[in-house]
């Protein structure tokens, strides 16, 4: 409501901003004349260009669907010069533009389309003035008007979404200009002109503004919820305060940075094992940055780090990186695996979920306490296709979806693996099939029946199966909490969730209640493994037959976590500030196979970069963007979001998703996305997450080397194109020594050794002095896929030709810069190739 007061006060005539309103639940036939009472949102935009609308949030900050269709109304008043003018209304669907209350332009409604055989439209024609052409299937409608120097009121009303359509505005815009001259978006005098470059810059700003505004809006919307969780944490603290975990004295000679090291020192001393030595400062920074943000440090970060006082620089770096928004990116990738987030962009079916990655990301970005995160996940509310936890409930083609979810939740947060119980009583676990299905019934909120496929068939005459089967297909199982040994009632610190006290909320209470100390232990153990490479309890998702290597440390960490109000950053800070984390790595294979009592954490385990860390860091090192296609096979927007998801243009690796080209159709290929996925798949990323996984396949395989060495992505990464940071470095007037040193810092976060410096100098020196080509221009053009191809026309031969051509062109890599001689460029590229393909890049320090 504060926003309303704000713009009522604004004098409209001098307004620098366009006032926008959203209306929902429109009466049929009245969609373009929405009643004031149906207004649900009002905000400002700088001009009449609309590519996104604010996300709607629940009081718990979950994204919500708006009614479909909904209406966007934009108002603006300005004076027009005395001249013949042309106004352009550009819209994908129905829109009306009025001037002083009189209609001057109208576009037609968009129709849902189930075809795949439409023709590909001809390439867009750029008019003589150079206006950005309307993307397929947008309409441009013009109005000729005579300006008179006076002020006029403009109002745009546009319908967004509707049955069988994407609820997105497309490129909704109004522009104006003198006849034959370049148009500007309707708005203040300095509004962007309707040319590609200015439109794209405008859209990019709008994206950023909306992302920030959405965050502020959801935090404001959920203030009361956040306060309720804080109050709950006070109660929980009172409950936990008394559960003291005494910290032991470390034997002398064992390095101690914090209490974690005291717990670790005793078994190390008992085993007469010396802890590994400390990492150097630069090795530490690289490891820390990869662990907290998923990215190698930038050269600037390295410089700042080294400029800080030696005694405090490590702690400072920890605090700085914990505050990075990339913290959320790195955690999102982890929970996508653990929670089996598995969206399908094309007619979801293979155990697909909604894209609840966006809610995971926002939760970590907003620092949502972890007990609230889990509660919201279990409640499965909010929008499915916008990425709310409702998407967790989806499970296409699965005959027992809630059983699958119960299994995921129990593995993730209770260390209780119920997968076996899907079809029979677990042979090596104390769980029966009934346990899984009674939890599944709690999620369903009603009794469930055992499907026939979730059973082991008894074959007549054959021997009795080796597994016990206590349920029969068709048996009814009632909602019930199955793990009385973990917790038999959940009443301390009741959950402050909204809504009725239904059985999902009850289930959430059992998970996160402080009486259930398994929850906090499982979570801290997961975080420990993430940073140390191995859990205190292994496997982290299956505790039934496992023993902790350091039971007291586990309890201590769990208590710290709970007392902090389930704050993941507090936990991370404790671990990465320990001496143990900052040691040189121990050999991973021996350690992984050791019995719990032999796991000493003399240092963290040697690890390889995850697929996401690798792809993101490669791009960061060379300063290039993915330039990926939109992950959307229906850019025309004429199919519903339950059939085709628009997952946008990824900028971080976790945002990629399976490309769902089971149809093998070239016209459905997204070549750049595929080139990223090729690398990620070789490094253990799963394009399909049909089941939860707490650790990746970390085996080494030749494809890992090959795809990086020869693949499309690897080729683009090392290419000195005009957007490569190394092209800029090479063009600077610096001694060769400096170029080599900067290169090592950017890629490996360290200076070159004297021998490396000699090798690189010998390689580059003969061509360095003459490396520049005078007068050459930048050839940089951002890669863009042809957006005329959409599901509705993908069966046409032309769509196939277009995408196959893009695939072939991509194979050639990025356009090399003309500013460097090819003699120098090729040598420098080869040097870069060697650095990014070196084991030092792919393995963590």
């Amino acid at each position, binding site marked *: 409501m504060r926003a309303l007061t704000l713009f009522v006060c604004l004098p409209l005539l001098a307004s620098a901003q366009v006032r926008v309103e959203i209306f929902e639940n429109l009466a049929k036939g009245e969609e373009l004349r929405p009643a004031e009472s149906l207004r649900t949102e009002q905000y400002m935009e700088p001009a009449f260009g609309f590519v996104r609308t604010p996300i709607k949030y629940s009081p718990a900050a979950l994204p919500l669907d708006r009614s479909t269709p909904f209406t966007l109304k934009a108002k603006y008043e300005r004076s027009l010069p005395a001249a013949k003018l042309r106004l352009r209304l550009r819209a994908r669907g129905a829109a009306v533009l009025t001037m002083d209350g009189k209609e001057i332009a109208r576009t037609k409604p968009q129709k849902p389309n189930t075809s795949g055989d439409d023709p590909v439209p001809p390439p867009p024609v750029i008019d003589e003035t150079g206006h950005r052409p309307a993307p397929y299937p947008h309409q441009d409608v013009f109005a000729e008007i005579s300006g008179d120097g006076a002020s006029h009121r403009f109002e745009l009303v546009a319908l967004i979404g509707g049955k069988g359509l994407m609820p997105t505005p497309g490129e909704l815009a109004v522009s104006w200009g003198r006849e034959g001259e370049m148009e500007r978006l309707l708005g203040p005098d300095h509004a962007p002109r309707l040319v590609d470059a200015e439109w794209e810059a405008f859209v990019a700003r709008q994206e950023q503004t909306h992302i920030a505004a959405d965050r502020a809006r959801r935090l404001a919307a959920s203030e009361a919820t956040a306060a309720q969780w804080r109050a709950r944490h006070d109660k929980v603290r009172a409950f936990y305060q008394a559960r003291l975990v005494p910290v032991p004295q470390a034997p002398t000679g064992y390095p101690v940075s914090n209490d974690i090291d005291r717990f670790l020192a005793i078994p190390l001393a008992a085993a007469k094992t010396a802890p590994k030595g400390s990492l150097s400062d630069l090795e530490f920074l690289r490891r820390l940055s990869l662990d907290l943000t998923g990215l190698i440090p930038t050269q600037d970060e390295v410089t700042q780090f080294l400029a800080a006082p030696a005694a405090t620089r490590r702690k400072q770096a920890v605090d700085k990186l914990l505050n990075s928004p990339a913290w959320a990116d790195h955690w999102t990738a982890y929970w996508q695996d653990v929670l089996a987030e598995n969206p399908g962009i094309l007619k979801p079916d*293979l155990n697909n979920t909604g894209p609840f990655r966006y809610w995971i990301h926002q939760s970590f970005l907003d620092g949502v306490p972890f007990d609230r995160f889990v509660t919201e996940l279990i409640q499965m509310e909010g929008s499915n296709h916008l990425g709310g936890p409702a998407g967790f409930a989806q499970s296409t083609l699965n005959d027992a979806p809630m059983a699958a979810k119960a299994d995921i939740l129990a593995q993730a947060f209770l260390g209780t693996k119920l997968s076996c119980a*899907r079809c029979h009583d677990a042979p090596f676990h104390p769980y029966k099939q009934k346990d899984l299905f009674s939890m599944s019934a709690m999620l369903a909120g009603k009794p469930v029946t055992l499907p026939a496929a979730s059973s082991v068939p008894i074959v007549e005459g054959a021997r009795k199966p080796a597994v016990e089967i206590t349920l029969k297909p068709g048996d009814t199982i009632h909602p019930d909490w199955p793990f009385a040994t973990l917790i038999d009632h959940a009443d301390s610190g009741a959950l402050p969730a909204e809504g009725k006290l239904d059985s999902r909320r009850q289930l959430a209470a059992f998970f996160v209640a402080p009486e259930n100390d398994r929850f906090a232990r499982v979570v801290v153990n997961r975080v420990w493994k993430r940073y140390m490479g191995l859990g205190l309890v292994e496997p982290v998702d299956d505790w039934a037959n496992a023993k902790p290597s350091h039971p007291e440390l586990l309890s201590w960490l769990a208590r710290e976590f709970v007392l902090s109000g389930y704050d993941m950053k507090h936990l991370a800070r404790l671990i990465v500030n320990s001496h143990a984390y900052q040691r040189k790595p121990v050999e991973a294979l021996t350690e992984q196979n050791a019995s719990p009592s032999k796991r000493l954490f003399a240092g963290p385990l040697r690890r390889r970069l995850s697929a996401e860390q690798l792809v993101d860091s490669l791009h960061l090192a060379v300063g290039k963007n993915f330039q990926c296609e939109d992950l959307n096979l229906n850019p025309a927007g004429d199919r519903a979001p339950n059939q085709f998801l628009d997952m946008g243009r990824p900028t971080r690796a976790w945002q990629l998703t399976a490309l769902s080209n089971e149809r093998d159709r070239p016209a459905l290929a997204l070549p750049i996305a595929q080139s990223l996925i090729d690398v990620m798949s070789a490094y253990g990323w799963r394009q399909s997450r049909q089941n939860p996984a707490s650790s990746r396949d970390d085996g080494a395989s030749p494809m890992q080397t090959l795809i990086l060495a020869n693949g499309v992505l690897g*080729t683009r990464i090392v290419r000195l194109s005009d957007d490569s940071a190394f092209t800029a470095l090479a063009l600077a007037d610096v001694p060769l020594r400096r170029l080599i040193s900067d290169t090592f810092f950017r890629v490996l976060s360290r200076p070159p050794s004297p021998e*490396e410096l000699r090798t690189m100098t010998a390689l580059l020196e003969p061509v360095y002095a003459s490396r520049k080509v005078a007068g050459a221009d930048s050839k940089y053009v951002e890669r863009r896929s042809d957006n005329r191809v959409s599901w509705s026309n993908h069966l046409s031969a032309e769509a*196939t030709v277009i995408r196959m051509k893009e695939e072939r062109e991509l*194979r050639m890599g990025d356009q090399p810069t003309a500013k460097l001689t090819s003699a120098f460029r090729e040598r420098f590229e080869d040097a870069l190739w060697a650095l990014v393909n070196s084991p030092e890049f792919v393995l963590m320090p």
Partner: protein
Amino acid sequence: MISRRHFLAASAATGAFAAESAPPPKGKATACIFLWLGGGAAHIDTFDPKPRSRSKSQAGSYYDAIPTAIRGESICEHLPRLAPLMDRAVIVRSVTHSISNEHAAAANLVHTGRLPSGTLQYPSIGSIVSSQLGAKTEEVPAYVVMGYPNIMRDPGFLGAKHGYVYLTQTETGPTGLIRPPDVDLNREDRRETLLGKLREGYTASRPNDEFVKQQDDVTRQAFKLAGPKFLNVFDLQRESPELRRSYGGEFGQRCLLARRLVQSGVRFVEVSHNLNFLNGSGWDTHNEGQLNQHLLIQELDNALSSLITDLETHKLLDETLIVVATEFGRPPDFDSGGGRGHQSLAFSMLLAGGGLRTGRAVGRTNDLGSAVAERPVTIPDFHATIHCALGINPHKNLYAGTRPVPITDRGAPLTELFA
């Protein structure tokens, strides 16, 4: 952990998990070429012809039928080169499953032999064969896909090491194995020398680290894999122009490449036939897709008949199993646009060579081809037959962690195809 596995393996061996008590037949094939007719090839317009339809409102085949080398069995008139070679093949006319509404789900079923369960991701048949047989030599991969990488072809719980090398266009070669176009031998040499120094320095300063050593070992193995032996396989120019012509267009060239791959030691090659050029819709012949379906069928005829003959010439047919598979068939009646919808309850697949007792049709559909009339063959049965032909026990357990997962879901091989 070991003892659990042994316990389960033992119980499987005693018949707790296996449906069949007789030992499965063991064929002699050593490699498999899996031709994928994505979209759902109409069985009544290809391998299971029925009386011809004379109008859109009359159900039936779209084409006339011609006799084949299998006595009493005919196939579509647009398969004239294949017809006389059909004594090398088996038509399985009674394949049946229940997913007809969605391509990806049905295609996934035909590739993995199972419906998704949500507790693990099942491996594709290519990955299973790769895991059981491995490549014949160290210098080639075990599993190659010519088509788009996607979930149904994935290794699932078997892990990335049983994944595939893929290519989407024969002219560009396999992704990751071919040097980028601007890197000549000179540059490649320079790159590997520079990298060699970095590798050496890194590994030497971390002695006794098995993890680092493994990483270095696979790097060495990788560069061997991208060596001339395997890459020469992709050079189709080495074949005679007549042979290349006889195989036909891109799909034919893929089949020719498949033969070369098998010759080089690859175990499983999947070749996708769905480029949409010829009739718009590929094998998914809704509406107007039907009109030019014969062009697809002719393309299949050229490629498949050439492949059979060519393998025979190289004395490889007996040890190479050719499979022609599709996600479902199509009903005998027509949609409003004159094309056909989907039908999964009865459709055809083809097997050829592989040392099987060929020259026969297995199973039968009813008069119109709309239902199985005799000897239903499930997808697990079909998979079991492929595995048996390759000497793999279809009841053997794979392990997803500690969980035993039989190679097929109680599939029973078509025993009549084994001598």
